[in-house]
């Protein structure tokens, strides 16, 4: 397993929202997906993921429902709400601006 990079403050919400928008899923699969999509670079442990999920639910950006999984299990499936989508768009824009700016600074000298 590769060494995981520390997560930048505030980026977890963005990641969760982005991934859940692509496909509603449960906490466990979400954790795996974060690992997979970030090519094993980002490793989000349960201790950060679940509070983040509850926080987002509390803010009304995502909603949760218990659903039957294909394996015959019950799982809590999270999906992005309309306001979550709006929030994601805003956050993504500001993130892109930020990363572009940071990139520009890092490319100098």
């Amino acid at each position, binding site marked *: 397993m590769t060494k995981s990079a520390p997560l930048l403050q505030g980026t977890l919400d963005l990641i969760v929202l982005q991934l859940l928008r692509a496909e509603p899923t*449960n*906490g*466990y699969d979400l*954790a795996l997906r974060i690992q997979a999509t970030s090519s094993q670079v980002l490793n989000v*442990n*349960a*201790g950060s993921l*679940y*509070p*983040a999920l*509850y*926080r987002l*639910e*509390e*803010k*009304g950006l995502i*909603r949760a429902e218990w659903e039957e999984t294909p394996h015959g*299990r*019950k*799982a*809590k499936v999270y999906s992005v*709400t309309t306001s979550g989508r709006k929030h994601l768009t805003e956050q993504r824009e500001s993130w892109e601006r930020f990363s572009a700016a940071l990139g520009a600074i890092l490319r100098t000298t």
Partner: protein
Amino acid sequence: MLNWFRLRLRGMVRHGALRQDMHDEMREHLERATDRLRRRGLSVADARAEARREFGNATVIEEEARVARRTGWMDALRGDLRFAARHFSRRPLASVTIVLVLALGIGVNSALFSMIQAVTLRPAPGMPDDRDLVRIRGVQWSDDQSQRFPRRLSFPELLQLSERREAFARVAGWVSDEVMLRVGTGEPRSVGAQFVTPNFFSTTGVGTHGGPGLRAGSLQDARDEEMAVVISHRLWQEEFGGAPMTTASLDVNGVPLRIAGVAPAKFHGATPASGRPAALWIPVSARGAILRGTSQALVSRDSGIFSAIARVAPGVSYGQAGAVAASIAKQFATPASALSLGAGAGDVAEVRAETDSRGRGTSEVLRLRGETELRADTELSVVIAVFGTVCLLVLLVTCTNVSALMVGAAVSRRREIAVRLSLGASRMRLVRQLLTESTLLSMTGGLAGLLLYWWIVTLLAKQLPSAEMAPDVLTVGFTMIFALGTGLLFGLSPALHATRAGVAGALKDAGSGSRQRSRLQKGFVIAQIVFTQPLLVVLAMMLGATVGQNARFPSERVGERIIALRFNLWSGYVVVTNATGPSEKEKLAATMKDRIAQLPGVERVVHEPAATRIVRVSVVPEDRGNGERAAEAKRVHVEGTAPGYFGMLEIPILRGRELVAEDSLASNEAIVIDSDMARELWGSMDPVGKRLTGVFDQSGRAEQGMYEVVGVFDAAHPTTRGTTDRIYSARAPRAPDQFLVRTTGPATAFVPALNRFLRAEAPELPVGRLETLAEVGRAMSRDAMRVTAGSAAAGVLALLLASLGLYGVVALAVGQRTREIGVRVAIGAKPRQVVRMFFLSGLKLSIVGLGVGLPISLAAVYFANIQVVGPQLDLKLVALAVGIAVLIVASLATWIPARRAAAVDPLTALRAD
């Protein structure tokens, strides 16, 4: 936003379910991780352990998740409450004291408030609370414009008022009288009756049941005769057992009346009853027949006999209606030559003043609620002032107590707070904990107070049927907010203070307290006594006043042998001046007096005294004595008194002699005064033979008279007229229709015989009242007993409140000094010395409190004494008695905890914090 609210709500309601939800989700996560690891070839146990390791600390995660969900505060609250409950059960004394103090304070104060409200803001029992219903109150100014007297309205004045449709939609009136009621073959008895205009019930909006009711009509129909009666609910219950009535009839003054209906349960008239509540409502057209007169009263402008109510026209203000009523009142000046005797009124002087001054009459319009009688509402303002003061003091005592106890309780926990702070509790968290505790205590106290209030109000409502008492949300709310607010405020301030203190300092210095705290507590003890003292003084005064009034009647022994007899002289408007001479009825009454005196079994008959004028008297300069008010002018009632009156009532004459027949001829008007007035004017000198000059109004002119004291009676034995500021003269006119009959044997047995005799011999002279003085006295003392019991109970509660507070404060102070006590005992102090130390310091504080409170108490006494009509109380005695009572309570409250502290084993005390 809606979603947010939904979640928050769910968080509150389904707290447990969410927790389970979270738990399930995490378990699911773990199981899937375990499966994944097992697929990689790990054993079940290893896979599970690895999954757990990967997952992290589940409890911490749950906790963080809960914070994210913001349901954490609920868990904290739950914890706080649990902790608070544990804390209280460990200190039952302090907690119970706070709850008790709050309950007493809130309960008593709200009850007092409700009582004030019932007599000022609520309509008479059974009457609707209607903005449009008003009282039209006749007022007469005295010549010098200094005094207002009640004025009754004549029927023509009522008619004129009702014609002013722009101001009054309806005008109705009634005349109050006493009549002899006889049901079936029973013995006749005196009851109150109101002779009402035909629109009385429709104007008040009060419905009757059990019959067709009185014939409805307008004011103009008042002369259409109808011999019917509406009876009170109480009479219906007592005489007919509440059974449905078909064709029952009653006998009133020998006149049969058909029962037309029953009034609602509480209803006893449009205004609160003063004296005897009405039991009968009879059309005013029947008044002539019942009182053996003509219907002249409904024609004459001079027959001012009616009390009036009205419904104001829509949109008309009380001010506009009042202006209309006042303009009509101006046209109804009464002839100055006549002296009228108010219906059922003993005080001729006050009625006289109404008629003396031509054109000074006016009318006022006021909303029909609370007391609307002129004399009653001035007394009412006194009652409100007194009760208001009591309320304020109770509230202050409660708040002082609660704050003292709260501060004491919080300060004694400084060590605990310091420990928790040093273990890492946040300040906010601690403040919240303390706040939860004070809220819990306050709520419990508030709830108990509410129950107490409910109980008092229901009890009062049963005891005082003349006032409409009902629990009131606003009152309770106000008091609760005040008391609970105090609890919270004083629960919070020490919390902030204690958490601000340095941890190390608090731990080292645990519990021994700072100088600042002890000053605060001393302040509380003093404030407590400062507020309690005037409270008790005022209550003692009320108690004294009612007990004094209770003693207004002669002893049972004398009362059992005297019958009070009152004829219903026609109309209550009697010309008694020499210009017209006595009326036929008066002559008949005088004849009957002589004939009654001849009856076997009768010892003597005398006129009941009547106040015929109010005079400003002052002692003739050369006769001035050394009394406190020797040089002051004094307003007194002149009572027209029959010779032999004092002897008949067995009132001891201390100096001089009683009035005799020759006194009416002497050049100076001979008077008998009471011993209080004698002391006030002449001090230790003998007042017999001393002279007073008096100035009074006679038909608008100031006249002068010269009075000479011939006797002094013992004020401790009151007359039937009350004791204060009255002089008894044989020359002044007497009431022509009121007599006292002294019998040789028990008077009760003689009453029916006397009634039969009067009916047979003088049927045209109806009897309004015929009962023994003992009966009258008993009825009065029943009322007085209620008031007395009420103020006594309030006094005991106040004392209880104060002593609870004192005890609590001192006990806490002693408790905090346990270590000090231990040290003292360990180095050789005897328990007695410890007790004495605490006892003396407590006593010192009490005395300081008494000293500070004294001026307030004296002010209260002074105020109440000049306002409350009744026997004057000895200021020094009251102050002394209250002072001693407070000292005793304070001493006990200090002594008990001090003794308990001294009994502690020094080792335990030193170990304790």
